[in-house]
């Protein structure tokens, strides 16, 4: 052994550059991907919880073609679209599929006078107020936000439902100079009749409403209160 021993790096020190590299890359990667991972389009979009009863929108709204408002009665009246009371289901299921095992929770609830505890799919934060009525009045179809529900076996979140997603529409719509852009994008179509709005034949409407849009827009523009809110208190009240 040397008396005047020099400091020699231990062997593992050879790994330091690699460790620095890996840590560095992961820090950069985290910084890069974190906004996405934490964003609503990652966390919310595609959320599709299992419901107590495997209710199929594909069957009811798609195949049977039921109007959305048969169950969601609040959509054109109020803030809430409303999940139907048990009695609404029983209007038909008192006669249809009376012995279905899958519908047992429904029949149980009906008998006991209780309700079925559905799992909330579209869940906005409590500090946001989303009025269904205003959006229906502005001519938005249900599918604009909820996606093609009539083709979903189990409902899933089709759009991120984040603030920036909401504002995409609200900002463009409020800006009159960009009117033509809006029309070409066909995000909204104001001249739909109420029954068209709640029609579940999504594709058909998409194809046909090119021309009527323009006139409808003009009608609404004349109203003083046409612009959708882009200020905070429009939704955060």
């Amino acid at each position, binding site marked *: 052994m040397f008396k005047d021993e020099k400091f020699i790096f231990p062997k593992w020190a050879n790994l330091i550059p690699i460790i620095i590299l890996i840590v560095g890359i992961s820090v950069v990667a985290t910084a890069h991907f*974190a906004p996405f*991972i*934490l964003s609503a389009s990652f*966390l919310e979009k595609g*959320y599709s*919880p299992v419901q107590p009863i495997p209710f199929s929108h594909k069957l009811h709204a798609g195949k049977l073609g039921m109007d959305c408002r048969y169950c969601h*009665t*609040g959509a*054109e*009246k*109020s*803030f*809430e679209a*409303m*999940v*139907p*009371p*048990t*009695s*609404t289901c029983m209007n038909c299921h008192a006669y249809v599929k009376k012995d279905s095992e899958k519908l047992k929770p429904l029949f149980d*609830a*009906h008998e006991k*006078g*209780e*309700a*079925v*505890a*559905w*799992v*909330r799919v579209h*869940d906005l*934060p*409590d*500090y946001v*107020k989303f*009025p269904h*009525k*205003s959006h229906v*009045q*502005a001519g938005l179809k249900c599918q604009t936000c909820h996606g093609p529900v009539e083709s979903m076996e189990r409902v899933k979140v089709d759009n991120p439902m984040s603030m920036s997603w909401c504002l995409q529409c609200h900002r463009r719509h409020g800006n009159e100079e960009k009117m033509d852009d809006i029309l070409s994008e066909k995000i909204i179509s104001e001249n739909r009749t109420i029954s068209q709005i709640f029609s579940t034949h999504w594709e058909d409407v998409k194809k046909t409403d090119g021309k009527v849009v323009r006139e409808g827009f003009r009608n609404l523009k004349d*109203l*003083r*209160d046409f*612009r959708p*809110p*882009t*200020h*905070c*208190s*429009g939704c*955060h*009240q």
Partner: protein
Amino acid sequence: MSQEEVMDKTEESQVNRRSFIQIMGASAALASMGGCILRRPKEHIVPYNALPEDMVLGDSLDYASSFNLTGDVQGLLVKSYEGRPTKIEGLPTHPDNKGKTNAQSQAMVLELYDPDRSFAPSKNGIVSTWDVFEKEWVKELKGSKIAFLVENTNSPSFNKLTNQFENAAWYQYTPVSDVNVTEGTNLAFGSSYAVHPDYSKADKILALDCDFLSTEPGNVKATIEFADKRHDKKTNKMNRLYAVESRFTLTGGKADHRIAVKSAEVLDVLLGLVSELADKKEDLRSLSAKKLTDKKLQQRVALIADDLLKAGKNSLVVAGVNQPALVHALVAAVNQILGAEGTTVTYTKIHDDVDYGSIKELVDSLNNEDVETLVIIGANPVYNAPADLKFEQAMKKAKTTIHHGLHRDETAAVCQWHLNAAHGLESWGDWYTADGKVSLQQPLIEPLSEVVKGSVKIGDKAEKAYSAIELLTVLSGGAESGHDTVSQHSGLIGAGWKKAVHDGLISGRAYPPQTSAIRLKNIANKIATVPVVSSKSLEVVFSIDAKVHDGRYANNGWLQELPDPMTKIAWDNPVLISHATAKEYGLSEADLVEVSVAGVKAKGAVHIMPGQAKNSLTLTLGYGRTFDGEKGVVARDVGFNFYTLRTSDAMNFTSGAKITPIGTYSFANSQPHSVQEDRDLVKHYDLDLYKQDPKIATRDIENDIPKNMQQKYAHLKEKTTTKSLSTDLDFTKGYQWGMSIDLTRCTGCAGCTVACQSENNIPIVGKEEMKIGREMHWIRMDRYFTYQGGDNLKQQQGTAEFKDKSLPISHEGDNYDESDVSIATMPVACQHCETAPCEEVCPVAATSHSQEGLNDMTYNRCVGTRYCSNNCPYKVRRYNYYHFAQKSPWVSPGTTWGTDATFGYTKLDKLDKMQANPHVTVRYRGVMEKCTYCVQRINKARMDVKGEGKVLNDQDGTTPTPACAQACPADAIVFGDIKDPKSKVSELRNVDSSYKLLEAINTKPRTTFISAIKNPHPEWV
């Protein structure tokens, strides 16, 4: 104060730097770990089993109902979300209150959810059930000699049910009643009448110890009528109000002239007036009334007499319920002789379905052991009966004692049985209004029970609760429901009954007016017997509270936290004393004192009140409650109980009191500084001055800056063209919201504060937090003292030196005339400045401007720097120092936030959450909040008309109304679209006397004020 606000001793000791870093480290680690599995917790949607008819979730269902406060009835329209009543509004079609309310009726909804309410019967303090009680009642309790002591005698159904009991004796007691009024009319007319003043026809009003704008019965109706008559903007016609009183009341503050005399001397002033009137009206000479010895006072009274005579049938004299029968008799005589009877005052019979005995008679028969079973319905005599009757001892002579009430109060504690009452929003009822119309009370919710409350559950089912009407039915062995009793008694069936329920009123039942000749001889005889009281002797006046009334609302957090309209003190009932008297007895502000009346002593704390009559102490009743509840008990140990000094021969005021200091005390005073210091924040002018120079308010801007600073800020006066810091928004499109507040109409009742609190989920904070200025009210009522006196007043009028009217009061020890003190009131909420100073300093843009001119506050963005609050010139921003919303509104007054639960967080009961308005975000700790112009109502109104292709406007009546404007009985607050030239608010913004608060600092507020105009007598001395 600022030091206390920033440094919190409780928290400092809990979290030090080291533990903070530990927590931060842990949470950072957790956050990085949870990155991939972050989702909000799973939520459930639980729909109805069968949706009730007409119910749309998210929309309120409104029901007509009624509020009754010992005969003072208001029609209500109660908002209910999914079966939860959340907000009280006035019933617009009700003939008396015309859609308006006051603080107490607004707070009724909170009383419903009071967790200290009793939810089950108890026997000797042990929880029991109604079934047990009913069995025992039939078997043994129902003795042969029953006595009932009831509080409310103005329910036709209840009164009818009293016939069901044979051999029962009926007594009635409320601490404050109109017994003097009925006795007075009996003395004057030979039969007892109820008195109905009509302020809408009165040009000249003299109020004798009568706070008709605030504490007297019928104050909402009176305020509506008075405000309408106050100032006609087009013709500049005003009514004139004189007030003679001991306590400085809101009515005295609104009065054009006020005379501060002891309550006992009000009679002398009235006799002085009669002697002046007798010069013109021969009839009055037979009273041989004496003139006052004080020459100046007599001169003033002569001016009042002259004014009343000139007004003739449009004059009105009113007297408060505190004043003795003789005063009421004299007032009736004066009104008849002036010709006012039939115009400004009418008389009707009194509801006489049942002849109720007095509490004194009850105590006598209890002491004679004539009562086997005593049933107390609603009343709380152990707490508030006259002390000399010794009610508690007398009560024990009855074999069985039963108490029926909302709370397990002082009386319930000593009764064998306590029965839980149903609240007014839980039961059917009917109430006579003052003049015999019948208002219906409709329930909105099943009686809340132990099950809802989430604690003890008795048996399998929720325990019942009965209203007074249902209780009588049960006791008499009947089986009708409350609904059946009320509907049967109404005599209406089918569509007629449905319409009455819908309207909240059974129409066509009012009593016809009555009249008879005045019996002057009786009055003259009575005058001769009045003893002379030395003016030097110290007087105590027992007064009901403007908030908790006689103590019945003591457990209501909203009302406790509401600063008293006059003293601005919350969570207390100070002994009010004038400056000179305090000096004489060696007292200073907030001294703990001992008041003794006829040898009986009571503790209190003094507040020096400008305008209080010399040698007169005001003791406010209703505080110092001791009853037990189950949770916080808001009322316990708040203030002092003065019922112990009140005796049956001196219910209203008495002389010969003593007061000695024994220590110190501290108040939660929301406005300790009450002078305007040179600045006319409330611009107030006399009518003459205003007529000469209608634009005076707009020219007065330089006074916004204090005199000693005017030089420094001289450049502000010049119109500069420097660029604005604010983002330029286009205020020419869409709706542009604005508010106008008419200070000539505003009486300062602070009903708006409670309305705002219930609409906007505003928490209460308790006394300790309020002391350091952390109250959360979005709209506060500022009250400034002004001074109308001064030797060279006349010469100075209209000159610059005249501005500082308030100065004498600000200098302690100055000798000023209490009669010349007046007040100016001003409701201040967020002014929604177009160039808002708060917006410029927010580092996270949590407060920003909307296209419609609203200064928005976004709670989820706020990080709590409080820069905005510091930069707000109006000091209207409120900060959640703790998670106040988690405990509100059942915080007990002594609570220190942060000690009993980390970060002030405790879990709420189901019951506590039920009052909240679902359309307003509940704010978390560390978040700033403020008035939003009730943006939830604006958004809702906009949504409602949009589908019809219409715009909001006043013509269609679609303009949204914020909660404050909706409640304001004086209609002082008007809201609307300022861009619409036809809207009412545009009109009011353009009247001559309209101004902006602190206009000189160029904030361009959207709220404008209309100057307070007074109409003093031109020759007043």
